[in-house]
């Protein structure tokens, strides 16, 4: 059609393809309260992660069909909701404890990078790609998800809507999960609040994090959240904002993004990751990025699930 008469706003309209590992293995997710419990907490965490990390490597070897499995490891530090310690103090401690447990962290990410990285507003971009799964009767006249800041996995109870004075009494009906099997597990996820500045919710940023690890984020065709290493003469900075959003700690690491992800987390993360699945199941990912992943997978003889949430696997170890 009219494509030839359109000029793109940048000279590089092509969507860039990303190198991919087989599996992106997340070794943990650090919040201030974990840090405040001292180095013992980190030591215990990595000790618990280790056997599952080994299992993830074995699973990746099965997936790669006997060839050398490419597994990259990553770790996420919160600097979005609270800022604590400093990269100079924390990063060596973190790497030391991981190493003591026999683990190597290839990539270190800051949680705020999921909101904004290198001047690109990732969370806002992902939000603009949410396409709410419609409940039966949705004919296009109802407002979309972006107008309310919540996303659910089904139909809310109508009782939650404020009624009119002296209006007809609407009988209560329960909320329901879309595609539920007999009974519903209804989840309503807060994506952000404004007080007055917009703050993205933890599950929403975690969903952005999953999309980044699955190689499905682009900014006008260009990769985002590209890993950077410190130069040999560079030391770790004093402030989190001075640290690259995604820091490469191991020069021989497999690519950051992967066909599948595995996250090993304490069980308190289960509700968050359930919410992540609710978000991921309603994201219209960049079509070209999806196609590129599929083409690479085919070329490598690897199966990748069509649905994005099905590309993420989890291990929840007991404990807080």
């Amino acid at each position, binding site marked *: *059609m009219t494509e030839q008469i359109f000029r793109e706003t940048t000279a590089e309209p092509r969507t860039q393809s990303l190198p991919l590992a087989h599996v992106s293995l997340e070794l943990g997710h650090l919040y201030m309260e974990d840090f405040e419990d001292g180095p013992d907490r980190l030591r215990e965490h990595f000790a618990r992660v280790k056997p599952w990390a080994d299992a993830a490597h074995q699973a990746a070897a099965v997936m790669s069909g006997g060839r050398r499995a490419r597994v990259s490891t990553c770790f996420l530090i919160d600097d979005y909701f609270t800022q604590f310690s400093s990269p100079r103090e924390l990063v060596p401690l973190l790497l030391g404890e991981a190493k003591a447990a026999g683990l190597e962290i290839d990539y270190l990410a800051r949680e705020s990078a999921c909101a904004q990285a290198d001047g690109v507003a990732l969370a806002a971009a992902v939000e603009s790609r949410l396409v709410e799964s419609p409940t039966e009767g949705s004919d296009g006249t109802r407002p*979309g998800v972006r107008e309310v800041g919540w996303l659910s996995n089904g139909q809310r109870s109508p009782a939650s809507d404020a009624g009119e004075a002296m209006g007809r009494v609407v009988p209560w009906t329960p909320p329901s999960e879309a595609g539920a099997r007999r009974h519903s597990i209804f989840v309503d996820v807060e994506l952000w609040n404004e007080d007055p500045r917009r703050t993205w919710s933890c599950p929403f940023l975690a969903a952005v994090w999953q999309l980044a690890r699955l190689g499905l984020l682009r900014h006008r065709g260009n990769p985002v959240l590209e890993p950077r290493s410190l130069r040999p003469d560079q030391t770790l900075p004093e402030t989190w904002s001075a640290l690259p959003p995604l820091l490469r700690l191991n020069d021989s690491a497999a690519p950051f993004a992967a066909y599948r992800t595995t996250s090993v987390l304490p069980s308190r993360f289960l509700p968050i990751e359930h919410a992540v699945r609710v978000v991921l*199941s309603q994201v219209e990912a960049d079509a070209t990025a999806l196609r590129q992943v599929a083409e690479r997978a085919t070329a490598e003889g690897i199966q990748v699930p*069509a649905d994005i949430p099905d590309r993420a696997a989890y291990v929840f170890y007991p404990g807080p």
Partner: protein
Amino acid sequence: MAPADSGLQPVLCGEVRTSVLRTSEALTARTAVQLLNLRPDEHVLLSERPNLRVVSPQLLTGVDCRLPAAGGSRPRAVGTVAARAVLTEGRVLQTSAFARLVPSEGSHRRAWGHYLLRPGVVEPLARHQARDVVDGFLAAAPLPGGVLNPGAVAERLLDHVLRHRLLDQRAPFKSGRTRLRWAALPAAEGAGASIERFTVAADGLRTVALRTPVADPAAVAALCEDLALHDWLLTTLLALVERSRLGSGDGEAVLAALRPLVDHLLHLWMPGARVPDGLSGVWETLEKQPGFSRQWQTLVQRIRDQVAVQTAPLSRRVLASS
């Protein structure tokens, strides 16, 4: 001869809303791109020839509802409606929502991920007559609740864009919105695009029935956006000329009323400039009957004559007093 009417024919349908941009000055290409940056990670399309036209990335809205039907039963359908915003010459804003109806393989709704991979496709879960759906969709009355309503999607997008803080909310003249609801069935083998009907209903509603050899809904939507733009221009110019009481009111008032038209509207007429290959036959038909351009040129000539007549004594006075 049109192909036999079977339930398997893909139907394209959509609606275009057209409004003046509520801003005192037309936007430049740069600000227009900012305005239509609806998906920050995607490109806004910009074209400056033959006129400035900026197109937003496409957004999706999920639907699970009934398809309209003139006579038969209304089948349930699930999928996504695509929508985009288009700004012409930084002055006229259009939002366009459209879908391609593609029969589903099963009769049950599938996991949502299935539909997310088919942007702009709505899948009927039961057999239906394509013609019946088109007729139901184009019936002039407001679409009943629970029936696929791309117009509502377009309207919400229009409200959303019009509230952007780049806009000072000062339109140069008062004007209404128009709605153009369209549906397209495949053209006969080897035939070009044709228009089966174009109706002007009350309250700003127009309906268009098409036959097209093109199955790309975005291309057919582009044609309909072009039709809607010119229909809106004509509608708005007619209304404003009537309000100016051209030929009856006092000269300076008429001039003041006509001035914004000269400044903001008259240069926008360019029918068919953006129409994709294979669809241009539609404009040729419309130019013959009812003759859009003919009416436009007549109006423009009247306005130009008035402006000339009204300004002549003014300039004489100015000359005399200097």
